[in-house]
């Protein structure tokens, strides 16, 4: 049984900031889910704001590394999905406000 919570992993991932927009991946709403198995391996499901993101590979790597920095997590894997497609309504209110989208 693993005692690490999904919130702890999300806290670690929130240190990863998209340098173009200046917000972290969690508040941008790009992290769709975190699953932790009994052996404390995390699987992060995420998307990107565009399929053509030039930081595609790096963001994936940073999120994996950040998840692995969570205390108690053994190994993390990241799956990038395109459905549902990201839009700004998935972002946190502070992001929407800062962008002028609300």
């Amino acid at each position, binding site marked *: 049984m693993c005692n690490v919570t999904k919130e702890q992993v999300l806290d670690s991932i929130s240190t990863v900031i998209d*340098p173009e927009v200046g917000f972290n991946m969690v508040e941008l709403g790009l992290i769709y889910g975190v699953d932790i198995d009994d052996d404390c391996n995390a699987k992060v499901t995420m998307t990107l*704001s565009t399929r*053509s993101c030039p930081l595609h590979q790096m963001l994936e790597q940073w999120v994996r590394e*950040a998840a692995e920095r969570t205390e108690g997590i053994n190994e993390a894997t990241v799956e990038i999905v395109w459905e549902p497609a990201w839009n700004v309504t998935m972002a946190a209110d502070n992001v929407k406000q800062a962008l002028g989208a609300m």
Partner: protein
Amino acid sequence: MFNISRDFAPPIKMIEPFFVIGSIFYALGVLFLLFLDPSSGHVDLVTVGWAHWLLLGFVMMTIFGAMAQLIPVVVEVGHFSVDLYYIIWPSLLTGTLTMVAGFWWVPDVLAYGGLLVLVAMVTFLFETFLTLKKAERITLSVKSVMWANIFLTVAIVIGFLMALAIGEGVVLDVGKWLGAHAVLVLGGFVTLTIMGLSLILLPMFGLSHGFDETPITRAYQLMVGAVIAYVVGTLIDWNWVRWLALVVAFVSVGFYGYQIWIIYQTRARKAHDIYAKTMYVGYGSLAVALVLGVVTLFVSSEQVILSAAWFLILGFFSYLINGHLYKIVPFLVWFERYSPLVGKQKVPMLNEMLPERRAEWQFWFTSAGLVVGGIGLLFGSSSLFHGGVTLMVVGAGFMLSSVLSMLSYGKELNISRTENNV
């Protein structure tokens, strides 16, 4: 261990010459306008030489440099061989200088300049086509870039033959083929490239999603059809076909403008930063150039032709290019110098790497010069034209200084991806 793929971002030392040389050609190109007589026609060799200076030295040089980063972004795969870009800028630079010398002073060297430009472009086309071949998703942007490069191939063959005709006496009706060469380069390559890239870049930077892409699909189809029709019309010497092709090209630009409006309306990021403002003036210039272009279909006026070209080249093309330099250059510099530090220390955001004040001065001087100079050309006022150009010279100086400042940001860090096990 750090393991970042370089597939999607070439090293800055490879791309830096393209942007520095492009900005120098832009600044000098604007400066040269002070010595041009606005009453000289668009087929005058001095004007043609200046057009090649700006279009090859600034537009093509910067587009090629940007393509080193943007092609993988568009086709979603890595380059076939990005190292080929090391061949492109030296041959394009020496070819452009030689060609312009040919137009202005020594017609005999024109063909040699054309040959060097040909080498640069064939290398670019070779690399681009082999990269496009790897594309798994054939999107509208991929198709636009593919057609743009096919048209560039035809344009450079025609251009080279014209250079041989002027410099070496090869029999070719240069006056007749000049129009086809211009339509292939400006409509076929530059406009189609911009259409394809803007469908990716504008939504990416504006965070626009879920918009209808029908207008740009129509724009792309019509522009491809128009360019083909214009070349065929030139081949068979049917003026009405060429006229009709221009009408279709203008309709295509109208559809494209409508698509940009849709993307603008659906954007989540509403900030009116230097990038956004530059895009507004760029697309505003396109609208003015379109109206003036339509007028030239019915009114034969050299002043209207020149002012339409002014707003198209120094307005639309230059603003789109310079505006995107404010995005692309910081990204490449950040990727090179700061990405290895992510997670280890605080790194700057991309917008913090902009020399904001200089960029603002660049924008306002250039915009004032664009409007004043364009009005001067349209109404045949030499003093208004030169007044506008003077403002643009100051703006171009700020642009060059901004590009150099962005390129040197964080240089003292002296971190390379090689050292970080890439």
